[in-house]
C-alpha cells in the first residue's frame, strides 16, 4: 500500500521514546496519554518486583529441608495488613481512573473551529475528503500543523477502525452510522494510519499515511495533485484501489478477482455461459456496479480467495475521468 509514496516516507514510525515503548507523540493529547501510560508502567514495575521479590525471598528462607518440616509461621489473619492491601490499591486505582477519564474527555470533544474532514473505509482501503475538496483522495491525507481537525467517518461494508498510533487516536468506523474522531497534530512528518478492527483478508494491508505539513504547504492543496499522464494516473488508481483483489501481470495467477493482464478487447465468459466483450462500457459497469456481470469462476465463495463480492466504487471515490485513465492504462497491458 505504501509503495506509491516517495522512498523517504516509507519508514514513518521511526523515533520511539527513550524506553522504546511508545511511538512519537505527535498530537496535543499524546503527552497526557503517555504520562498516564508511564505512571501505570512504573507502578506495575514496582508491584511486579515487589511480589516476585517476596516469593523469591521467602522461598530461599523457608525452603522445606526435611520431610516433616512444619511451616515457620501459621498466621492466617492480619487485619491491619489486609486493610492496607485493600486500601492502597483502591486509592491508586481511583487516581488512574480519574486521570484516564479526564484524558478521554479531551479526546472525545473536538474544538468548535476544527477543520472538517471525511473518511470512508471499505475493504481494504481508506479514502479521505479534505475541507473544500470535491471527491476523495485514496490512501493518504494532509493536515496542517497545530490546528484541530475532525473526521466524520463511515464504512461502506464491515467494521474498520481509524487508528493513528502517533496521535494516540482511535475510533471504530461503522457501516450505517457516522462516527467522529479528532486530533491536533504537533509535529511535522508522515505517520502511518492503520486499520485496527479486523475486517477480513487484507486487514493488515489496510494502511494509509497522514502528512502533517505547515499551513503554507497545506494551502497548496497537495491532495489535488495528480499525474498528468493518464496512463500513469490509471496505474496509480489501480495500485490504490484494486491490488488487494486483482493482479495485472502475465503470470496467469489470480487472487480473489480476475487477472487484468491483456483482457482489453477480448471476451470474458460469465457464469451463465454468455460472453461479453471487454470494452469501456464493461469496465465502467464493473467498477460502478460490480455485481451486474461476474466472470465465470469468481462468484463469491467460488474460489479459495474470495469470500465476498467486489465493493462498488462511486464517482466520489473514482471520478469518471479516473475510469478513463484506468481504461487507457488497461490498454497498455499486453504481451
Amino acid at each position, binding site marked *: 500500500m505504501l509503495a506509491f509514496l516517495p522512498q523517504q516516507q516509507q519508514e514513518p*514510525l521511526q523515533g*520511539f521514546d527513550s524506553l522504546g*515503548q511508545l511511538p512519537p507523540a505527535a498530537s496535543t*493529547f499524546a503527552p497526557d*496519554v503517555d504520562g*498516564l*501510560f508511564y505512571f*501505570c508502567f512504573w507502578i506495575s514495575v514496582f508491584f*511486579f518486583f515487589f*511480589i516476585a521479590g*517476596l*516469593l523469591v525471598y*521467602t*522461598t530461599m528462607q*523457608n*525452603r*522445606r529441608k*526435611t*520431610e*516433616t*518440616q*512444619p*511451616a*515457620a*509461621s*501459621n*498466621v*492466617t*489473619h492480619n487485619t491491619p495488613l*489486609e486493610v492496607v492491601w485493600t486500601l492502597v*490499591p*483502591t486509592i491508586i*486505582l481511583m487516581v*488512574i*481512573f480519574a*486521570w484516564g*477519564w479526564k*484524558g*478521554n474527555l479531551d*479526546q472525545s470533544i473536538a474544538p468548535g473551529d476544527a477543520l472538517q474532514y471525511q473518511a470512508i473505509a471499505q475493504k481494504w482501503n481508506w479514502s479521505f475528503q479534505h475541507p473544500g475538496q470535491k471527491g476523495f483522495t485514496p490512501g493518504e491525507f494532509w493536515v496542517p500543523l497545530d490546528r484541530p481537525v475532525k473526521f466524520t467517518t463511515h464504512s461502506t*461494508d464491515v467494521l474498520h477502525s481509524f*487508528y493513528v*498510533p502517533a496521535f*494516540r487516536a482511535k*475510533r471504530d468506523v461503522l*457501516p*450505517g*452510522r457516522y462516527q467522529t474522531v479528532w486530533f491536533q497534530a504537533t509535529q511535522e512528518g508522515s505517520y502511518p494510519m492503520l486499520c485496527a*478492527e*479486523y475486517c*477480513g*483478508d*487484507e*486487514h*493488515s*494491508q489496510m494502511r494509509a499515511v497522514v502528512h502533517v505539513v505547515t499551513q503554507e504547504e497545506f494551502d497548496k492543496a497537495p491532495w489535488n495533485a495528480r499525474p498528468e499522464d493518464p496512463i500513469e494516473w490509471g496505474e496509480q488508481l489501480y495500485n490504490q484501489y484494486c491490488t488487494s483483489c486483482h493482479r495485472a501481470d502475465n503470470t496467469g*495467477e489470480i*487472487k480473489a478477482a480476475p487477472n487484468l493482464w491483456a483482457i482489453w478487447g477480448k471476451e470474458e465468459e460469465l457464469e451463465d455461459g454468455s460472453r461479453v466483450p471487454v470494452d469501456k462500457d464493461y469496465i465502467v459497469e464493473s467498477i460502478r456496479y460490480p455485481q451486474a456481470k461476474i466472470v465465470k469462476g469468481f462468484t463469491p465463495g467460488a474460489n479459495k*480467495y474470495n*469470500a465476498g463480492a467486489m465493493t462498488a466504487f462511486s464517482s466520489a471515490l473514482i471520478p469518471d475521468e479516473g475510469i478513463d485513465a484506468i481504461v487507457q492504462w488497461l490498454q497498455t497491458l499486453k504481451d
Partner: protein
Amino acid sequence: MTTNVPVADVAIEEQPKENYLNCSKGFWSWAGTLDHKRIGVMYLIGTTMAFLTGGIFALGIRVQLWSPDGVMFTQETGLAGYNQMFTLHGVFMVFMFIIPAIPGALANFALPLMLGAKDVALPRLNLASFYLWLIGTGFAIYSILTGAVDTGWTFYTPYSIQTEQSVVSMGLAVFILGFSSIFTGMNFIVTCHKLRAPGQTWFRMPLFCWAIYATAILQVLATPVLGITVLMLAFEHLYHIGIFDPAYGGDPVLFQHFFWFYSHPAVYIMILPGMGVISEVVSVHARKPLFGYRLMAFSAISIAVISFIVWGHHMFTSGQSEFVMMAFSFLTFLVAIPTAIKEFSWVATIWKGSIALTAPMLYAMAFLVIFSIGGLTGIFLGALSTDIHLHDTYFVVAHFHAVMMGSTALAFFAGVHHWWPQIFGKMYNETLAKISACFTLVGFMVTFLPQFMMGSQGMPRRYATYLPEWQGYHQVSTIGAFILGTGFALMIGYLVHSLFAGKPARENYWGGATLDWKTATPPVHTNFDEDPVVTTDEIYDYSFLSEEKGKA
C-alpha cells in the same frame, strides 16, 4: 527428595487394590459411566487434545509472523489462511479448552471428593455435559472441514454475516459447547448446596469449591446470552432478518454488547477456577493454611458479581457515550480490587511456609508471577485515555494471554500435576516436570513481553503482515512460542509415560489436609469407604504431618 510425605512405611502392595479405574472394564464402562472421576478423566483427555490442537494453530500464527510480509501466507497467495488460523486458535482454546478444562476435568474429579460426597448431585447431567462437549467439538471440526471461519473468535458483525456459511456450523458448535458449560455449572451449584459432608459448613469448604461455585453461577447466568447471540447470528447469516446487519436496518454494535455480556463474565469463568486451583496448591506445597480464607471466598463471589457489569470496557472505541465509558471504566477498576486481594493473599500464604519446590508449586509460582503481569497490565486497559491507544493492539493480546494462557492454563497444569497421583495412582518423572515448568515460565516471558512492547508502539492485532519496524519483536516472540511448545510437548511426554511406566504413588502423595487426599490413592469407586465428617474450622491443618514422624 525433600518433598516426600512420611508415609513411606506403608508398604505398596503387589496387587493393586480395587479403585475407580480398575473396578470395571470395557468401552461402555467408560463411555456410559456416571462416575464423576471417570468423566473427569475423559474431560482431561478431551480438553488436553483441544489444547494441543489450539497450540498447533498458535505455532502456525507465530511462524507466519516471522517475516513482515508473511511466511506461509502472503498477499500474492492470499492472507485468508492466516485469518482462519488465528480464529481456530481462539475458538479451540477458549471454548474447547480454557472454559471446560478446570471445571470439567479437575473440579469433576476433586470437587465431590473435597465435599466428602460419593458423586456429583446429578451424575447423568454430568455425562450429558461431556457428550455435549464432544458434539460441540464435532461441529467445530465439521466447520473447519467445510471451509473454516475467518471471523476471529469474537464473530463480530457485520463481517461474520457476510463471510462463508461455515460460520453457522461454528456458531452451532459454540451454542452446544455453551450448554455443556451450563450443565457443568448447574451440577456444581447443586452439589455444593446439597452434598457437603456432615459438619462441613460453607466456610469449611476448601477454597477451590468456592471458586468453582462462583464460576458455576457465572456459567449458568451468562452462557444463555451467548447461546441466544450465536443463534441470532446464525439466523441473520441465513435469513437476513436485520438484527445486526445495517444493510437490513440492524445495528452491528448491538452484537458486541450481547457478545461481551457473556464473554466478559466468561473471562472469569476461565480465571476463577484457576484461582481456586492455585489456592489449594500453594496451601499444600507451602504446608500452611490459606491466608485470609473468608476474604478470599468473598473476593471470588464479588469478582463473579462485578464481572457482569464491566462488559463495555471491550468497546471503548466503538462509539459508546462518554458517560457509559466512564461508568464501565470505574466498574472495571472496582473488579481489580478483589483480584489484588487474592494475589496478596497467595503470597502471604506462601510467606514463611514450609516451601517445597515441587512441580505443582513451580507451576503455581509461575502463575503468581504471570498473573501479576496480567493484572497490572489490565490497569493500562481499564484507564480510558490509554485504552484508546492500546485497544485492539498486541498489548491487549499479550494482556489476555497473561491471564488466560499464563494464568488459567498454568493453573490447570499446576492442578494436573497436583492431583495426578491421586487421579491415576501413578507418579510422573518429577525432574522432567520441574524442567517443563521452567520452560513454560521462560517461554511465556520470551513470547509475550515483546508483544507488550510492540503493542504499546501501535502494532494492531489480527495482522497477517506488518510494518518492518516490528520484525525484531515478532521474531523473539516466535522463538518464545517454540520454547513454550517444547515445554508442553515434554509435559505430555512424561505424563503419558507415567501412565504406563510410572511408579505407583503413595497415599496422600503431597500431604494434603482436605478431604480429596483423605481417601485411597486412587479413590475407590464410591470415593470413601466411610462417609467423612468435618469437625473443625481448621481445614488446612498440616500439623499431622509433623506429628506422625514423632510417633514413629
